[in-house]
């Protein structure tokens, strides 16, 4: 009997389709456990994602189950019934990107229930108590930018600034120092979460402050003889014309008792303003009779106030443990560019503490700062914690997201609903970026570390995540653009004291 070609094709399909369907179903099959024992507790997972509040656009929250079992079945169920199954033979749970997206999209404002079943050969299956993740309606900015470097001391080796998608695991370098003769790079700062407008400092032979504006990179030299040191901590004025910097003369020293590693402190510091349009550096002259050290400037979103940290000028032989910074603000007239008198916003000295990194939410309602025992470099202070000021009533609260280890640098998402902060809670040495949902001063979600494709990555990564900043899109310039700009002569800023 002869079979025609179309018929043969049809027959093949008739055989292949059921096989494919069966294979597909087998691959999707999950154990439907009827007989299992209840563990009566949640499984231990790393990172700790139990009870966290996550944005509806976050990358898959992969984790590692730290139980001594042979095989795991994980069932993720959304409030509206969408189910996602994942299997793991080594405890590492990786959610497929597409299914995860769907799970979140169907579940905004709801919660995800994660059920973990474990099996060992020849033993009865075990079921752990479910883990819940709460899905906020508010999205987080799609990118996070941070500096990656070794956490310590004097040498830096490889150093780069990286942008990482918060919605998936794509990561790319913005700056890599091997292209600029291994110079140090620091203090990347965005004009209101804008990936097209930012600056960073390079220290070394290719040094300068590099401004990025719509794909163009410009190398400038901001330092002048009238400043105590380089232009250091920046803050963009909301109009985008001015950038406030502190200029710091900084030293570092090394502790010899094990409780502390490094001490970084200022011998002098002052605030200066850079006019990006006129290329002018302007002294930010104070009206105080006492000589102060001023640092960590931050503009209010309206541009009417400049917040900063201030302490009395140290004198020779000072005790670094007695240097306490208060939180201050000065009014600013955008027309004339003139500052008003300083006002104390938070008197940290009165409680024997010190403030650093004041950062105001883009909606202007809240200010988060770091509080520690003394000095100005909180990242090496184990006791450093984040505090919140509700600006309308000046109420100060210690934030619930703190840990026993250092919490330090922090920044807000463009919608004021997410906070990212550096925390050393993992190992006490390397800082990791933690996200926390911010509903209001009394509604702050449990923080979670930036999810990784390989959830065990933080255990192996010896680099620290420095200055995490949310940005509203992808940065278009890359390491080669900075390398090209570094080959050009730096434009020297003009110093003026007119304001």
């Amino acid at each position: 009997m002869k079979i025609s070609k179309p018929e043969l094709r049809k027959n093949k399909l008739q055989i292949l389709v059921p096989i494919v369907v069966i294979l597909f179903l087998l691959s999707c099959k999950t154990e439907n456990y009827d007989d299992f024992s209840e563990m009566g507790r949640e499984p231990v997972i790393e990172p700790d994602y139990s009870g966290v509040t996550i944005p509806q656009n976050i990358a898959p929250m992969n984790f590692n189950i730290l139980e001594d079992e042979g095989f795991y079945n994980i069932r993720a169920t959304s409030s509206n019934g969408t189910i996602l199954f994942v299997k793991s033979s080594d405890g590492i749970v990786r959610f497929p990107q597409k299914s995860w997206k769907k799970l979140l999209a169907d579940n905004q404002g709801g919660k995800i229930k994660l059920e973990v079943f474990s099996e060992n050969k020849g033993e009865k299956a075990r079921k752990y108590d479910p883990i819940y993740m709460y899905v906020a309606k508010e999205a987080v900015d799609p990118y996070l930018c941070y500096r990656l470097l070794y956490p310590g001391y004097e040498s830096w080796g490889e150093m780069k600034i990286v942008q990482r998608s918060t919605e998936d695991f794509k990561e790319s370098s913005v700056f890599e120092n091997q292209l600029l003769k291994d110079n140090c790079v620091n203090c990347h700062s965005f004009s209101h979460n804008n990936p097209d407008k930012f600056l960073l400092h390079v220290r070394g032979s290719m040094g300068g402050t590099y401004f990025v504006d719509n794909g163009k990179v410009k190398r400038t030299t901001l330092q002048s003889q009238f400043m105590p040191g380089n232009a250091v901590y920046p803050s963009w004025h909301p109009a985008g014309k001015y950038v406030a910097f502190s200029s710091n003369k900084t030293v570092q020293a090394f502790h010899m008792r094990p409780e502390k590693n490094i001490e970084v402190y200022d011998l002098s510091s002052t605030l200066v303003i850079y006019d990006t349009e006129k290329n002018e550096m302007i002294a930010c002259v104070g009206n105080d009779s006492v000589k102060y050290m001023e640092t960590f400037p931050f503009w209010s979103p309206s541009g009417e106030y400049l917040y900063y940290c201030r302490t009395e000028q140290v004198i020779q032989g000072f005790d670094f443990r007695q240097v306490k910074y208060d939180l201050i603000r000065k009014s600013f007239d955008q027309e004339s560019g003139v500052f008003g008198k300083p006002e104390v916003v938070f008197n940290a000295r009165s409680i024997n503490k010190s403030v650093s990194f004041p950062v105001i939410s883009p909606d202007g309602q809240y200010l988060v700062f770091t509080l520690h025992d003394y000095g100005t470099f909180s990242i090496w202070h184990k006791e450093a914690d984040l505090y919140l000021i509700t600006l309308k009533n000046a109420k100060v609260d210690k934030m619930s997201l703190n840990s026993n280890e250092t919490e330090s640098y922090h920044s807000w998402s463009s919608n004021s609903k997410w906070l990212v902060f550096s925390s050393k809670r993992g190992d006490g040495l390397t800082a990791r970026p933690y996200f926390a949902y911010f509903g209001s001063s009394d509604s702050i979600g449990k923080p979670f570390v930036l999810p990784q494709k390989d959830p065990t990555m933080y255990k192996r990564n010896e680099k620290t995540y420095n200055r995490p900043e949310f940005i509203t899109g992808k940065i278009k310039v890359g390491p080669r653009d900075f390398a090209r700009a570094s080959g050009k002569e730096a434009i020297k800023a003009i110093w003026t004291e007119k304001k």
Partner: protein
Amino acid sequence: MLIDNCLQKGKTTEKFAVYLSLSLLFVISATYFYWVGNGIFFYQENRLLFIFSIEYLQKFAIKPGGLVEYAGNFLTQYYYSDGAGTLIISSFLILLCYIFIKINRRLSPDRSISLMFILLPSCLILLLQKRYDHLMHFNLGYLLVAMWFLLSIAIPEKLFRLIVLALFPLFFYLVGSFAFLYLGMFIIYCLIYEKGVLRYLFPVFLIVIVVLTFIVFKELLFLQPIDHLLRYPLPIVDLKSFPKFLYLLLGCFMLFPLLIKIFDPVKLKKKFAEIIPYATILTIFPVTVILLSKHNDPDTANLFKIEKAIYIQDWDAIINQHQSSPSTNVIGQYYYNLALSEKDQLCEKLFFGRQDFGSKSLTLQRDNELINRAIYFYYAIGLISEAHHLAFESMVNYGYRPENIKLLIKTELINGNYRIAEQYINVLKKTLHYRNWAIKYEKMIINHQLINTDPELAGKIRLLPGNDFFIRPNDAQNIELVLMASPYNKRAFEYKMSRFLLERDIVSVVNEVRKMKEMGYTNIPRHIEEAVVTFINIYKELPDLGGLDINPETKSRFFQYSSFCNLYSGNKSRLQKEMKKSERNTFWYYYQFK
């Protein structure tokens, strides 16, 4: 036999000469590296740590030439054993010869093997390998260049050759700047051996591919600076120390096709043709052996022996080594002093070993490569945070090395940072030779009590400063600060006293003696006593010894010393000669003659 296939049938003399020369090469290399030049194994194995992990591979995979370094590091980890190291290097030299025999056969199928040009690259590499900074991946780079060249000429078909040339980007990615050596070799080959338009077509094609590869690699694929793409990993970073053998080697590679061509048409009478291979052997190997035996640096070899003992904390071996064959090197003398300190004998036996550098051999500068050695002083006196600081700096600057990661683990355990120590332990567990070491310390992560029962770690915990202070650039100040924070730290105290002794500051020595009884000393260490006796003799006053007494035996030795001095008082050189025989181990001899 592989080599048999490359050699022409019937040429027994040639075969014999080739086997003889390869055997000689192997024997010379093996003898030298196993018995004489084995210091390079210790040095190179300790300057890197091969880790079996994806992250470690990624560090090399992100740059052209990185993989050849990765492979070199993989082999270098076997330098842990002198035997394995010797075998690797010697086998490599033979393999390179084998490739060149095959190339020779391709270039000149009807002629005899040019033994001289085949042996020359391997002999030059053997001479270069004497240098401590000639690393395994350089050897692999040369080998891959020769192999790729062989592949390029192996099949004469035009298409095959174009395919091999088109694969240049892959080759460049594998070997980095070594690919430029191949470029030179291949162009010379084409100009000499190819005929007609192909003589120019292949080089032009290859140059176009090279230029395109370079542009794509630089602008699109790899974030590497241009000089890195041009030079890495060829060993030409430091042109000042560029050895002439390296120029010769690079020349040999590039000009190999030309040399074969030049010497190919030489037609010799049969008897000369048979003599030439043996003449080559009789020339090249004696010259190699003479050059190998020249410029040996016994002091560096001695230093590596001491350093090896430092790593395994064999303090007695270091002390014996320096006392029996003294190092003239400041680092060797620093290690001797360190070993004495670890054995609590610093002021007892300081002058039993050679001291040429005064107090400079007590501590080392904390910069550049020296930080890797300076660490041990801080670790010895209990400045664990500074030892940790320097180990960390070493790790950042030079990557993980067996010693810096071990010190990071120990210092983190001493300082109570168990989670960080665990990270380092997990790294060390992914190595071939240090896994067991890591497992020992991993137990301490699980059971912290084991730290307190470990003699080394518990001893260091006891030495931790009682109060905090900042480390200073000046180590004399640091010792003062340690003693202020922990007044009973005998190790720091003896370093302080040793400084005074080495600076001949007997007044300061005497001023410190009164504190010793309170510190727990029941008798005064030998050299301090000698300094006190000197003080009494010069200043004619009896100092306050805080309740301790001078040993009568010391007084009697001083009497004897004085008698010698009086006997040869008119002849200082004679006096020194006589004293050197019997009294050189004393502070008095150091005080008078150093």
